[in-house]
């Protein structure tokens, strides 16, 4: 059996590519390492982001009809699971001075949703369209020739091969297959991050509509501990407490400190861990040419860390179109690449450097972070989820009067100048 297209990874990108490839009449096999994809085990913040023009698209949610609607890419996805609006984002300094992001009319800038439910729905559609679902299988390498692709797979310890005319790699940010096929060779390696998330009941001052981050040595980490909306089914009762770290600085240890010894320990006095999730992420600079021969790399596999679920859905949708065109002898992959480079903000010149804005600790002492955040007090910044716009708005506000900083805190002024001249890798 030779499939028209083999798709590796049944996340939002792979599932959407499978659905739309099958809808176009292609013979599709979808390969996935997990058994039940609706049961989320890897941590994911699970937000639909409503920022206008975010990654080349604007996404609307129609909760009455149960649809997620992509305006720019022109597709709809059925989604009837839970939705919790997020209206406020706060970044706090050690003395709890706050940088606040929100829209004046209180409209949400994101929804917490249920990723398992989204994936389950997409898989059902794929199966109805006769997609072959090869679960509990890892695809670890492939050879490509003008005749097609031969995929090497392993399932429950048994090795075997799958043949297809085209291959879509959608196996996520740690892309095993992309790595094996050499797609990471020309990408910059930015480091390895660990994340552990705790869904907790009984957290004081928890509000499901708020996303919060705390910067300062006093909180026990160079990377801000975060708190956001709990999972669908428990939006009101459970907080999502998120710790970032590295193999040297384990998130578990940060969690211990943050919840027991930091000034916020009082919030966790009566809290209980209900569920625990984690993820391990290799961060590469984005793939500029996400194809070669018969192979297209999409979604997180080609991204700087992540494209978010909505970006993944767009990638899958566009990839199905690209594969169909390639099978007809047209330049589908080149067209996909034009769209990929134009749409995702991490490709833009200088935009990645903006994320330096998050690297506050250990560069700045706690009282310096207090000072910097005090320059944002009384101002509500635009309601945004974007990891690039958030630090940009914050730093644009801090630096609106650089002479004032130079006068009041010359040492801080020098530090800002120094950080801004560093590369992204150096600062993070």
């Amino acid at each position, binding site marked *: 059996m030779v499939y028209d297209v083999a798709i590796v990874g049944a996340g939002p990108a792979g599932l959407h590519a499978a659905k739309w490839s099958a809808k176009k009449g292609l013979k599709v096999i979808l390969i996935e*390492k*997990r*058994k039940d994809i609706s*049961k989320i*085990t*890897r*941590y994911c913040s699970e937000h639909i982001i409503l920022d206008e023009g975010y990654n080349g698209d604007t996404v609307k949610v129609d909760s009455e009809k149960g649809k997620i609607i992509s305006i720019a890419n022109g597709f709809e996805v059925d989604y009837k699971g839970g939705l919790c609006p997020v209206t406020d984002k706060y970044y706090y300094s050690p003395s709890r001075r706050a940088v606040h992001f929100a829209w004046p009319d209180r409209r949400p800038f994101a929804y917490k949703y249920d990723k398992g439910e989204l994936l389950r729905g997409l898989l059902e559609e794929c199966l109805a369209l006769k997609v072959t679902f090869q679960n*509990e299988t*890892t695809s*670890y390498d492939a050879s490509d020739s003008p005749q097609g692709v031969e995929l090497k797979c*392993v399932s*429950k*310890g048994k090795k075997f091969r799958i043949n297809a005319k085209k291959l879509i790699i959608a*196996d*996520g940010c*740690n*892309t*095993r297959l992309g790595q094996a096929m050499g797609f990471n060779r020309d990408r910059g390696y930015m480091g*390895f991050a*660990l*994340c*552990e998330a705790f869904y907790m009941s009984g957290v004081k001052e928890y509000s499901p509509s708020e996303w919060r981050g705390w910067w300062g040595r006093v909180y026990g980490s160079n990377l801000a501990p975060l708190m956001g909306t709990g999972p669908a089914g428990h939006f009101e009762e459970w907080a999502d407490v998120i710790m970032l*770290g590295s*193999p040297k600085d*384990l*998130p*578990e240890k940060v969690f211990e400190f943050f919840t027991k010894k930091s000034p916020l320990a009082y919030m966790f006095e009566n809290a209980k861990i209900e569920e*625990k*999730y*984690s*993820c*391990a*992420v*290799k961060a590469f600079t984005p793939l500029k040419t996400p194809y070669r021969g018969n192979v297209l790399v999409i979604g997180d596999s080609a991204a700087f860390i992540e494209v978010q679920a909505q970006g993944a859905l767009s990638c899958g949708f566009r990839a199905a179109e690209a594969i169909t065109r390639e099978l007809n002898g047209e330049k589908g992959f080149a067209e996909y690449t034009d769209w990929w480079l134009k749409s995702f903000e991490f490709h833009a010149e200088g935009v990645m450097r903006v994320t330096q804005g998050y690297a506050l600790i250990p560069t700045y002492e706690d009282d310096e972070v207090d000072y910097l955040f005090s320059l944002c007090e009384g101002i509500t910044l635009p309601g945004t989820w974007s990891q690039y716009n958030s630090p940009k708005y914050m730093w644009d506000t801090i630096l609106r009067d650089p002479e004032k900083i130079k006068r009041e805190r010359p040492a801080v002024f020098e530090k800002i100048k120094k950080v801004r001249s560093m590369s992204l890798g150096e600062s993070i």
Partner: protein
Amino acid sequence: MIKVDVNACVGCGGCIDLCPMTAMRLVNDKSFVDSDLCSECGTCTEVCPLKAPRRLE
């Protein structure tokens, strides 16, 4: 040999992605080391956020 402490593992699959020998898979939503394929290189013990894979002497 390397074994996964199933009480510590949450099944995020990071070690499965990064194991150079494809020796790991999910069994009942927890990581499992297939000792026939494992080279005992220790990658899984390094990359796990929860330190669930452990080297047994």
